[in-house]
């Protein structure tokens, strides 16, 4: 994550007023289930606009409503309220077989009794595409996913990664308005998953189709997405580009769900229109960009890789706190430090073992160190967002 300059940019990116109609739009869509006598809200009132050609991720922990949202776009779940639009057309009550979107299932759901080629041709045949064209498009698509030699095989004879690519080809060959992917890489091992992430991104660029990607893996979402909607409890906690979401999480939930965050408890001692001063438990003062109320107890957030660690006293203009190394874990390319402050608060610091860092420069546990960072890297987060905050990425306290 090097896009530090983006940190001060406004967090919310309302979709630019594009001249084209959005590929998918959800307007006040909600879904409630009846479980016994109780009514469970899977998705709250959701407003989402997904642009044509975008790689859009729905990211969140299990049960956050991301899969239900996708299934409402596909037509497998009826929205309890609201309107689902594809290309501006209201499809809220249209059956899944009449919606111009295709889905890649987590379990792949390949037809085991059909060959790879027949699986891929399934959708085209339903649309009564001429046989010669079907053959050509299936061949092209198998070429794209690098399975040209496997057309005659049955899905059971393929590896997990190959099946995954067949599932992708089977959906993409129909040239849908949007491709919906439901945790498609979850069943693959780490190496293959990382390779497939890049592969998916490449394919998306080549075919130019809108991808809606459901995942609980924040790394996956950050790697591939143009924009991410972080979901929690049926609502969108934050919507933005990967850099925006990582650099300026809108709530504590987002900060903790994406990457690692340090939370430093403190009290606001001084506040003006330019910003506030927060006194931490250890006695150090930090300058914060947000305007807060004096006397308020807050948690200051800072990402571990933004923090510099050293023995020399840093520039007083930077945000700085003294501490003692509690633990140092050498990971090869980086070292992860845990530093204890005077009041017992622990701060995690990631330091790249770069050119200027020699092995013996690694601070041993027990040694006193200074931690410092640019003041823009620390900020105060509001509590977890609720329904009223949905979809609006920004949670700045004005």
């Amino acid at each position, binding site marked *: 994550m090097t896009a530090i300059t983006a940190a001060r940019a406004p967090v919310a990116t309302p979709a630019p007023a594009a001249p084209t109609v959005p590929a998918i739009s959800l307007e006040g869509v909600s879904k409630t289930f009846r479980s016994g006598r109780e009514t469970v809200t899977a998705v709250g009132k959701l407003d989402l606009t997904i642009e044509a050609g975008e790689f859009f991720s729905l990211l969140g922990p299990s049960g956050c409503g991301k899969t239900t949202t996708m299934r409402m776009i596909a037509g497998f779940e009826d929205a309890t309220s609201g309107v689902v639009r594809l290309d501006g057309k209201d499809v809220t009550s249209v059956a*899944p077989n009449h919606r111009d979107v295709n*889905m890649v299932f987590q*379990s792949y*759901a390949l037809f085991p009794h059909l060959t790879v080629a027949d699986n891929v041709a399934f959708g085209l045949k339903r649309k009564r595409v001429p046989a010669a064209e079907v053959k050509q498009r299936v061949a092209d698509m198998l070429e794209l996913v690098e399975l040209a030699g496997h057309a005659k095989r049955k*899905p*059971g004879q393929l590896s997990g990664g190959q099946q995954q690519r067949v599932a992708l080809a089977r959906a993409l060959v129909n040239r849908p308005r949007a491709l919906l992917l439901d945790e498609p890489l979850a069943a693959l091992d780490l190496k293959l998953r990382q390779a497939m992430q890049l592969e998916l991104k490449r394919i998306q660029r080549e075919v130019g189709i809108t991808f809606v990607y459901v995942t609980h893996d924040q790394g996956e979402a950050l790697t591939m997405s143009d924009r991410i909607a972080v979901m929690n409890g049926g609502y969108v906690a934050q919507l933005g580009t990967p850099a925006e979401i990582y650099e300026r999480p809108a709530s504590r939930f987002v900060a903790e769900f994406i990457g690692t965050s340090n939370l430093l408890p403190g009290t606001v001692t001084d506040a003006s229109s330019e910003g506030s001063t927060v006194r931490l438990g250890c006695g150090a003062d930090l300058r914060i960009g947000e305007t807060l109320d004096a006397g308020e107890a807050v948690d200051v957030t800072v990402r571990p890789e933004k923090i510099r660690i050293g023995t020399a006293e840093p520039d007083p203009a930077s945000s700085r706190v003294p501490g003692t190394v509690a633990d140092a874990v050498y990971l090869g390319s980086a070292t992860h430090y845990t530093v204890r402050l005077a009041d017992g608060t622990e701060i995690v610091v990631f330091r790249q073992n770069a050119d200027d860092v020699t092995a013996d420069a690694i601070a041993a546990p027990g040694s006193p160190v200074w931690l410092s960072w640019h003041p823009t890297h620390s900020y105060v987060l509001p509590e977890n967002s609720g329904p009223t905050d949905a979809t609006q990425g920004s949670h700045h306290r004005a």
Partner: protein
Amino acid sequence: MSVIVEGAVTGTPAPPRPRRRIDWGKLFTWTVLGWLFVPIVFMIAFSFNDISGRHNVTWQGFTVKWYGQAFDHADLTQALFHSLAIALLTMVIAGTIGSLLGLALGRHTFRGKGTTNLVMFAAICAPEVVLGAALLSLFLLMGVTTGFVAILLAHVMFTVSFVAITVRARVITLDPKLEEAARDLGAGPWTTFRLVTFPMLLPAIMAGGLLAFALSIDDYIITSFVAGEVTTFPLWIWGATRVGIPPQVNVMGTLIFAAGVLLAVINVILARRQASRGRP
């Protein structure tokens, strides 16, 4: 392993060979297999018995002439024809109804599902004598003439549960996402059934149908209640025991057995091929 190595190193003689142990598992397996197959072997052997007279109970020499004269007893042939016709029709009708029933029970939740399950198991558990007697009085009450149609109705009635249970077991293991995938790719509900659900259920439907066929063709008890003037193969044999069973019965038994084995083997091969393709 370590014992042998140690022996080799220290030079002590290898331990004495353990005394031969009886493999009880193997013995038990062969006993059961023998128990099952010896009667069938006798039936087949006596279809080659060169008897002179009425009684086919002692071995008198080898011949294949009964196979040439297999259909010499017109009434026996007629009875066999009845049995085959009823069994085939039962297979088709009970196969269809039972499959649909199994699909509904495995896939959907509906009012009366529990009752349907209960009735199905009751039909399997009820003693055949009771079923036969009950069916006879029901048919008499409803004015259904005993005979071919009555036998067919009775056979469908008692085999349909077996088919439904077989198919239901398969439906439960079927990934519902497969049908969603078909819908997603533009197939309507009927096309989805025709191209995805049905082919996936076919092995179970075939197994259920064969079960219905096998249950129908050798049913004696229920059939004897509702047959009226019609004679089926088992009924004819039972009637013939009083005067002596002709070797043609053994011949037909052997042929039916051979056909059954053939069908079972085909079914196993198909199911196995399906399974080896089907692992996702």
